[in-house]
């Protein structure tokens, strides 16, 4: 099964965050925890959905990632371009 991480947008500013384990959410995908175990991911997602219901997060969902295949490569790379752009910001200069 593919590796997945949990993502969301932060309520107050809409910024992208990634689940980093132990109830922590981080702005960098590099800090995210990933798993290829369905039960583990389902557990994370359920906990994140509870946070969403409590109001701290919006738009919670899981994202498929590829773990680094070579030393020095990025630890986790989203499979879809959309998620790579969410992780890294716009591919164009801003402002």
């Amino acid at each position: 099964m593919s590796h997945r991480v949990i993502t969301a947008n932060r309520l107050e500013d809409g910024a992208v965050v990634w689940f980093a384990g132990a109830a922590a959410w981080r702005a960098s995908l590099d800090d995210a925890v990933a798993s290829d175990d369905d039960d583990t991911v389902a557990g994370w997602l359920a906990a994140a959905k509870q946070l969403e219901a409590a109001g701290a997060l919006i738009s919670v969902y899981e994202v498929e990632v590829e773990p680094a295949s070579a030393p020095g490569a990025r630890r986790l790379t989203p499979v879809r371009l959309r998620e790579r752009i969410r992780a890294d910001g716009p591919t164009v200069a801003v402002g």
Partner: protein
Amino acid sequence: MYAYDRFDRTFLDERIEQFRDQVRRRLSGELSEEEFRPLRLRNGLYLQLHAYMLRVAIPYGLLSSRQLRALARVARDYDRGYGHFTTRQNVQFNWIRLDGVPDILEQLAAVEMHAVQTSGNCIRNITTDQYSGVAADEIEDPRPWAEIIRQWSTLHPEFSFLPRKFKVAVTGAASDRAAVRVHDIGLRMLRGADGTPGFEVLVGGGMGRTPMLAETIRGYLPQRDLLSYLEAILRVYNVEGRRDNLYKARIKILVSALGIERFRELVEDEWKRIRDSALRLDDAEIERVRALFAPQPYRTLPAYAPAFEARRVEDAAFARWAAANLFPHKVPGYAAVTLSLKPVGGIPGDMTAAQMEAVADLADAYSFGELRVTHRQNLVLADVPRERLYDLWRALDALELATPNVARATDIIACPGLDFCNLATARSIPVAQRLSDRLAELDGRHDLGPLNINISGCINSCGHHHVGHIGILGLEKAGVESYQVTLGGSSADDAAIGTIVGRGFTTDEIVDAIDTIVVTYLERRETGEPFNDTLRRIGMVPFRAALYGDGRAARADDGRRKQA
């Protein structure tokens, strides 16, 4: 310009206080996102990929210098120092914090702006010709009519929850610069048999996944009946339009399903009932609104401006700009000036806070303190004395707002695309930037003439790709960006939906593909022949052959027929 009255101010003040409380309750957890989402959308606040986006309405694209300064303040204090002008003549801020929005709305209200009805299934910003009131080919200034429609449609209780969003465009000129045939309702002013101005009413146009050109529902509508007729159309749509399928909910689907004749019968039946109701406009009301758009206090100037002509001869760069970015003004000695928000390699429609402030000063100094936003994502100073054009050009050039490319190949329309937008399937802006770099060079060598290239990052078509002479639609295929190209679209008098040229192109291929299309046009055009005329004359085959080779062109043709 329209000036707010006491009711407008009271309404907006109350609305902002309501939203302030709603934001507070959302942040404290009293409101869920499910409860809050429709409330924020009703105030123009979207959640995009990286942040909230606030879309601010610019009624029919008309801005005062004071309003532009307020937009600059918002950009600087609440965003990342810039704003993005859209194809709907509005402005968007891409990096907004939720807790800042009530204060932003307060600042906007102080200059008579808001974000109401910039989202949701309601009647959106009324759009019009950017040269309204100054174009020589105009029957009448359409802005009073856009304003009358704005007042009628704002908070209209019956039309606040339509099957889908609803867009109205109005033009008062012989030449359509408002893209009326790709709007839910298009209004084109014309003269009746006795010479009295009225409207041709078109209905059922639109882009998106099912692009259609609007059809004429009424060849001539007296001006006084405008609101009752619009009300009749909206009422039929509100009752009969589909609500079971998001993709089939626009009025174009209803008109197409019923046929224009049956749809007309329904509308005309309804109209008979309400034609002489309170919606009938009396002369006093029409004159009251017209007075808000009275001509500027123009000076009497000679049509020939020697200083302007001399500079044109002396300065080739100025001459290039003057040839591309000026539009004739109906008053002798004046010109309408387009400020290009399309620097070569830049982001279409973006403007920094510093540029906004400087342009606000230029509007005060040169053009009666007013500006317009165009649906091609540029700005216009509509009333500049020709004798002062050289000074203005120098000021604009220093601000990087004098690219001489209006309606030319590098004046590319692009939506925000996958770099920002939650709905996008592919990036638009980087493609626009790379194309701009490539085509600037080609245009410099060969003078490509007028050429509209429009790019959308998804099928919703915010980048108007269906009506670009060359249209580019970004899709996601098997996880990668794929760009589908259409040729022959137009939103002008020869309005047409472009035809798919063949299989799509990867992000690495797309710039070369467009280059190939443009070079094919260059090779085959007759002197002075615009792109779509060449295309009509020689057909798609030469373009397909150049893109895919002869054998593959045939397969591309099969593909197109399947998609059709």
